[in-house]
């Protein structure tokens, strides 16, 4: 059976998926059905927080797929995430309709007060959910395809690739900061009212989004597992470990890399689209190269090259961040910075590797090769 193939010899993955599934079942019940006074009640704050983490985890998974398995380090994956987010944000802006501050039925508020007379062409169609959903996939995918096609064809690899992806997201950030672009500039897109007709502030909508994120993450996980356990997946791993040798063996290295990159970008876009309605804002800051670097750190912390490691990393670093920013608001960058240093020095396989060592089990055989 397919699931068997995907999950046997992936004990960590099974565990993570199990926990995810359990969370997806328990959290909604504890939030909606259990009264607030009960100690078991899960607050809406926790739900949105977890929902956000789920999106981050999906993003981390996308990066781990290309970095951990194909050895392509993208320092610009935040760009695809943000593009997906903007596509969703545009849909949500259009949904506001005439409930904006100025009551303009067509134009979003930020266009009204900058005296824009008509909707820019690229804003058309975003009033329909299916179109927005399509764009969430198409825009990041297309960008990744063009970018990847150019880069892989000229065999831009390793550090060079990392740096031009950084340039990409930096350029996009600067561009989106410009108010003339028509994406709200620095203020970005905010003040969303509802999604698919449901009020965005309702607890049930939040749970819905939370569930959607959870399910998206699980499905994406299985899809990624499917890819890496497939024949193509083994080619991809061999590209990571010995690119030239794979090429000489007659494989179309470029197209393997390209499609994996596009798939990963689409996953990142979906993560962004699920993220925006939950946090309620998208702004060009999401394109910031620092965000993308941080993303790399999540993956490294969790354990690169094991898909569930990315999920563990995203959750643990972000949870740590939430805790630190509340309890050590003055100095939380110290422990965070130290964590990154220690992880690279002491835990080259990330937290997952540490966990594996603790339980004295041998890591699964699928992808244990040392990093190059």
């Amino acid at each position, binding site marked *: 059976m397919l699931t068997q193939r995907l999950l046997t010899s992936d004990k960590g993955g099974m565990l993570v998926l199990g926990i995810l599934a359990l969370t997806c079942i328990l959290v909604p019940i504890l939030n909606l059905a259990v009264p607030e006074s009960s100690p078991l009640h899960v607050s809406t704050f926790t739900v949105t927080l977890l929902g956000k983490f789920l999106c981050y985890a999906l993003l981390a998974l996308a990066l781990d797929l290309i970095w951990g398995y194909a050895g392509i380090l993208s320092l610009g994956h935040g760009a695809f995430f943000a593009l997906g987010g903007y596509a969703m944000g545009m849909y949500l802006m259009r949904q506001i309709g005439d409930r904006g501050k100025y009551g303009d039925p067509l134009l979003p508020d930020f266009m009204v007060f900058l005296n824009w007379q008509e909707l820019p062409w690229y804003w058309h169609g975003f009033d329909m959910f299916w179109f927005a959903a399509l764009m969430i996939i198409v825009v990041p995918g297309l960008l990744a395809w063009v970018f990847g096609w150019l880069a892989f064809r000229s065999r831009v690899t390793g*550090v060079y690739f*990392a740096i031009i992806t950084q340039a990409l997201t930096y350029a996009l950030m600067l561009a989106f900061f410009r108010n003339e672009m028509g994406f709200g500039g620095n203020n970005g897109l905010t003040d969303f009212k509802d999604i698919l007709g449901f009020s965005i502030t309702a607890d049930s909508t939040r749970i819905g989004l939370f569930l959607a994120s959870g399910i998206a993450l699980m499905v994406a996980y299985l899809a990624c597992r499917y890819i890496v356990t497939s024949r193509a997946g083994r080619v991809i791993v061999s590209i990571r470990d010995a690119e030239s040798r794979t090429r000489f063996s007659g494989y179309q290295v470029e197209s393997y890399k390209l499609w994996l990159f596009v798939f990963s970008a689409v996953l990142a876009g979906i993560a962004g689209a699920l993220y925006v309605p939950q946090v309620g804002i998208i702004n060009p800051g999401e394109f910031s190269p620092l965000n993308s670097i941080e993303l790399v750190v999540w993956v490294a912390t969790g354990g690169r090259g094991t898909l569930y490691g990315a999920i563990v990393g995203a959750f643990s670093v972000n949870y740590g961040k939430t805790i630190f920013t509340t309890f050590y608001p003055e100095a939380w960058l110290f422990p965070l910075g130290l964590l990154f*240093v220690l992880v690279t020095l002491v835990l080259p396989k990330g937290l997952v590797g540490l966990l594996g060592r603790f339980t004295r089990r041998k890591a699964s055989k699928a992808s244990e090769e040392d990093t190059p």
Partner: protein
Amino acid sequence: MIVTTTMERLQVLMRLCSALAIATLVALSTPVLAQSEPASATFEQLVNEVAQGSLSKRVDTVAAIAALKHERSADILQALQDGNLKVTRDDSERVVIETADNQILDAQTSEPITGTDLGRLKRIPIHNKLRSQLHTLLAQLNLSHPNDEVRLSAVTRLITDGGDEQTATLLNELKSDEQNSRVREAMDTAIALYQLESENATERLAAVKQLRGSLIPEVRGPLQERADYDSDKDVRIEAQRALDSIEGRLKMFRLGENVFFGLSLGSVFLLSAIGLAITFGVMGVINMAHGELMMIGAYTTWVIQQVFPNQIEYSLFMAIPAAFVVAGLVGIAIERGVIQFLYGRPLETLLATFGISLILQQAARSIFSPLNRAVSLPEWMSGSLQINPAFSITFNRLYILLFGLMVFFALLAILKKTSLGLKVRAVSQNRPMARAVGVRASWVDALTFGLGSGIAGIAGVALSQLTNVGPNLGQAYIIDSFMVVVFGGVGNLWGTLVGAMGLGIVNKFLEPYAGAVLAKVLILVLLILFIQKKPKGLFPQKGRAAAD
């Protein structure tokens, strides 16, 4: 009036100015000022009044002091202009002048005050209106100042202000005695500007011809007016011709200016990238903490200026070696503590150094506070080299450009000519082989990283003269630095130089058309496309070391 457009501003002052011009003439004829009459009672009152009342009242008081034609008027006004005119905080409100060497003079008599403790002095505040008024009054007084520069700036001021017939007459008289050609030229311009308004068409025509080719910005407005509206056809044609010739010269200088702007931006790129060219280019370490090392250099400059508050002029010369040492030591500590375990894993150095950069940033925030720190510009770094009225080069940019080149060539010399350089190149090209012939690779690594970091520190000193010194300083430059190194070709110093200057110039030529933001975006897009074409940069390194 000569320049009609500034008329409004000057109306109030006009009468006053002419009175003063005459006063100056009188003063000229009596060279030994110190021997003239003693101060009148009103003068003393006025001097005391300077310290009192509102700013607008002070404007009147100053005008009155000037109108008195008192021998001390100029000194008082100059002191007020320079912020040296002070008042005691006690009830007597005594007005004094504090000279540059901290001597305190009585404002009315200019006699030094000794023995009495005046307590803390309060500077008599002035605002722009007053400052501008003082400037004009002093310009009138300084037309016959013994110093050429002062005279020149006085005449220039007259050109800006415009003048009346009396000024023109005065200038005409002064011109005959003027020895300095530049001052004379400026006087000619001022007179010609006045004559542009003459009733007589021939005089106007002569004035237009005089102004032909002048780059002084104040000339163009009146000339344009002549070219458009003059009643005389010849004057119109001639004025248009004069304008065209000015425009042609301006275009040329604007191009020169743009090239300089580009080179200057390039030199900033160069300085910030050159350290990275060592750590990243030669050693293969993706040093995300590079920006923070520059930050350390900038903070070192600040600390030096705090420790030696009286040596601002020399502070940079102390800061450069200090920043090199401090940043270099931090760099060595980073290398020994973290990076030495990560050679051969460039992408993991990225993560570790990113963590370090966060720690260093927060450390700066904890030690120096999140606020920016004020680093002073030494006198010799301020101002600009005026080549002509349309083209000037700012000193700080010029020095930084030269400094960037110096650092570059020094580094090149170190790598090519010294034994350390030889070892560095050996280790970076083939580590096992270098070790086999007896190079202590780990020692060389530490020194190389220290060298790169030290240069980043030096870059920080330069940046402290251009921009903010604060915890975020490094972040602003890190991406640009990586772009430059990659564009130029990793491991090639010349590539870094060409890359930095090239990006700087392209940026500055795009900016007027695309705006600052879009220019930067375009540069990045071009860069991305360029890397596709030449994946190893402008000057790819040959041989084994080129592999990742």
